[in-house]
């Protein structure tokens, strides 16, 4: 851990409203009746966060997030930052990275990686006395991790 204070800051990605229907369901909860269960999404798993990690969400103003990245690159003295986006926020993450590159007049380079993040949903039975144990199911969501960096002068 490189940073001394408050790793869970306000920039933790909010769960973006996920539009994608769950592609994979756990064996236990294959056929769930929507009337009997309440779906409650847990927050995506948090990962250790360095100072130059930026988690993009859909709640904060776009310009503010862009400005934060620029500040990190210019004022913060970081040679590279990582922009992470999950689900709906992928678009925005790409947008931010491209904006950063455009405004730097080609000095910045991008390297994008995609991944799949496993998310957990809780299914709480409406009638808890009979329906049995609360269930969980997992589903996957796409994420993008864009490294924005100044190339090494060689």
């Amino acid at each position, binding site marked *: 851990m490189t940073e001394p204070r408050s790793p869970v800051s306000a920039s933790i990605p909010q769960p973006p409203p996920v539009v994608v229907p769950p592609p994979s369901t756990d064996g236990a909860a294959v056929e769930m009746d*929507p009337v009997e269960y309440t779906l*409650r999404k847990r927050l995506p798993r948090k990962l250790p966060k360095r100072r130059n990690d930026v988690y993009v969400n859909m709640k904060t103003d776009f310009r503010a997030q862009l400005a934060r990245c620029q500040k990190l690159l210019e004022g913060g003295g970081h040679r590279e930052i990582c922009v992470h986006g999950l689900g709906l926020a992928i678009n925005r993450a790409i947008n931010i990275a491209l904006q950063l590159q455009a405004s730097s007049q080609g000095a910045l380079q991008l390297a994008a990686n995609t991944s799949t993040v496993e998310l*957990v949903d809780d299914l709480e039975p409406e*009638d808890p006395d009979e329906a049995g*144990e609360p269930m*969980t199911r997992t589903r996957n969501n796409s994420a993008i991790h864009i490294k924005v960096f100044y190339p090494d002068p060689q």
Partner: protein
Amino acid sequence: MSSAKERMRNKKLKNQPSSVTYSSPGVGSGSSHCRNGGEGPSHGRGHDPSPARDRGSSHPIHGGGWVRGHQRDGKAYGQELPKAITASGFIKARAAEVTAMLKAVNKTTGSVHAFGVLPKHMRRRAMSHNTKRLPCRLREVANRMLEKSQKLGQKEKKPQSKTKSRKARRRHGNLLLDFNRRQRKNVWLETHIWHAKRFHMAKRWGYCLGERPTYKCYRACYRAMSSHCLLQDLSYHCCLELRGEEGLLLAALAQLTCKDSGPTFAAVASLSGRRQGSTLVYRAGQAPAQPLGPVLFLWRPRTQDSTHRQLWLWIHPTLKQDLLPELRAVCQCSEAVPPLPTLEEMPPAPAPPSQPPPGPAQAPALDTETKGPQPDGAKASKRKRSQGETETTGPPAKKVLGDGTRSPTTPVTWRSSTTGIVLSDLTMEIVRYRLIGPLSHSVLTETLEAATECDASSPSQQACFWWPEHCKDERNMSLHRKQADIFNLLKGVYSTAEVPSGSVLGLTVDDPRLTLPRIRGKAMPSIQQAQEVDEEEESRRELMLHGVPEGCSQSPLWERSVRDNVTDHKTPEQELNRMRSEVLVPGSRLQPLPQGRVPVLLVQQPGKQAGQEQASWGVGWDLLLPKAWGMAFWVPLVYRGVRVGGLNMALKHSQNKGAPHFPHDYPDCPAGKRFQEEQEEELLAKFKRRPPAKRTNYIKHGCLAPFRCPWQQLAEEWELIVREEAVTGGEEAKGGGSSETLAKLLVPKAGEMTSQVDVAFTILRNRKSLRLLSSWCRPTSSKGQRSQRQWAVPPLNPAVAASLLASNWRSLVWVRLSLLSKGQPELHAQVCVPAPEDLRRQRGQPSCSEPLEPLHTDHFRSKLKQLKKHRKAKPTSSSSSHKSDDKQSGSAPISTSTSTPGPDTSSAPTIHSTPGPPSLSAPTPLPSVTLPAPSLTPPSSSPTSDLILGLWPEPLPSVSSHCSRVTLGWVSQGDFSLVSGCGEALGLVSLPGLLHMLLGQPEDQRGLVLLRNPSSLQYRLAKVNIEV
């Protein structure tokens, strides 16, 4: 100068005999005496002529009287001398004068110090303390006076001298005695002294609790809650234990709960003991009516092939007095059991630790609390055994009988002869700490360490400790290892929210004082190294998905015998310090002692669950400990960088979570009612402490009840309004043949208006109805709707609304309000229905469009003034008729009864010039006229006593239609929310009112209300959220 002289003269003249007269101007010979008089020996004043001149000029008439000094002008010497003098008479008169003079001369007047004799330039400051600084001739006198004054001082101090010296008072035994005396009324928690040094303490519910820290930490505590960890001592919550057959217990408890409002005691997840449950209890059999309050409950996991279960109910102390009788009634627990038999009656433990014969040693431990330092474990047990039956605790033992919520004499255990259920009161038996924040699990994993196993081979010399016995059974050990593994998995978790909500983990840990760090640090998750191991990752995933596996929720903490054993054999701090000093390498880890194994329970507390934004904010863990171990865990936790919060932070926690806080937000529960009364008294007292001119005039602000919320009246009024409108609207609808309205649908039901007159209001807790309302409150076109799509919610229309309303006429709904623009809602702010033009303006320019309340007139002010005048002029006159006549002519042309003074009715016409929703303007005058009819007709004396400037006297006029916007409800908690960055409030609104409002609002602006603080005229627009 002259006035001082005058005073001196008066003083001297005081002692003159009455026979002497000085008035005659011309007693020449008499004046000869007077010339040098007045110079007391104690005053070393010089014979300066100047004052005499002053005197002569200022009192020219007194010429021949008692005049001091030489008279220059000789005016005093009378022109006419008597022709003859009778010697005897003359001498008698002179003799009287001489004695008077001698008397005056010898008497010291006032507080004359010995050094007063000295001229000013010779006086020194320290003379009064050190007589040696005085000249020799005065020393004796000064010494005498000093003695006298000291004696006087001692007399005053005498009662204080009974108390011992500070050193004696601080001696350990005496200190404990004093502590016991001080907790007679309000019991202390184990962390009391720690708190008392750092917190403003409040006496609540029979306990001394930390209200808020003395240092500034509001934001720091918020940050701790949202990003690290905040610690609270919740030991004041009461624990009730129920033991019995599972079926019988469930049947009994089913009478107390209601399925509609959420999970009950029978919820499968919590029944297995793997999850903690929470529910709302009602009076037995009254289910959706008469609620009592919320309960947290925890089932003990099933032991093999036994249907005998154990259940803990955790309740707020104010709830206990209501719930305990109900529980006894439903469980038919009528026999009070003396404490001893319950021990033998204990259910068979999975591994019954062989105990010293339980009777004598533990009998006192049941009712007494032997907290604080105790002698070394081995010695203590020996002594107890040797001394046998008698209570051996001498005066220096710290013990408190009973607790804050019951008297020491009441029994703590009841048994039912028919069902076999045993109900016992475990209040103050178990310490409960709450850690709030996403990193609370890392604090826990750093503080606690799973107990090291005891090698069973070593013949432990003391068989009285529970752990070595516990270790002998292999099953116990394997369970312990499993629990320890799971606990270690938590190290790799990044946020507490990743663990399923309500998970329970049992554990046995080492004494956390052994690993106390030398300096305070901040616990952080160690995530990277943990991720390397694949196997661990897999099991962690399992934990996240399915929670704590079956069986790992079991803990020896459930056993009373183990708890008592652990409590009795706590290593004192002193012993630990001695061990620390003997360690070879200073600061190295101590060897665990055989008695230092503590069973604990860890219970995950879910964070914010309702609503969509800020999910799982305020998540955390609860730590349950056996009593007497409070401080042993508290300090190590604090050393891991947690913040400690008081009662006000608990309130803020639930406020940010959007959850109602008990007892503040449960006005329909008896405890909530009591709380509201107390709060009103407190606020009123605070209001009255201000000087009258500096008080807010709430009448002028149109705030009827700034210190309490007349919920009942509100509910009744709204019922009346909606029904009334249904009648009138229904007739119109019949005539006009217009589309169906709420009114039309309600017409048949409006007839039964009078049937339910004295039905108490309730809070709507039916989850289905709440879910409906929640979906209606959102404007349909906003984002964030998609997630809710899976619910086939019927759109809001009058028919559905009427069906919802049919059973809930007098219901209130719990809502969260977030302000759209600026503003900070306060306690008891009004929630009002916006008028159509407000909404129109809001659509036009969302910024500067919020309406203002016109200033009301305070009719009581002039009345108060008159009363005051009357009281001054003729205190006994009864002025009521006069008063009311005045009022009538002035301001109340509407009211017809002569005895009703104007204000309550007169406020209506002035205010309704800007009516609320047009549909409501018709029925509103109705309640305002009918309700306060018997109001202010009392004989002269009573209104004078309870009339306070700026407050409406009882009874209140119509609360809903008092202001220009129709009141819907009030706010019970309001503040600027650091979570969402805007003002947020939680409050209750009337259900008929809410539905009425929603039906009248355009689709895209649905759920907008106005909010106005009691001491302000500015309305603010806010958004209603109902979260299920």
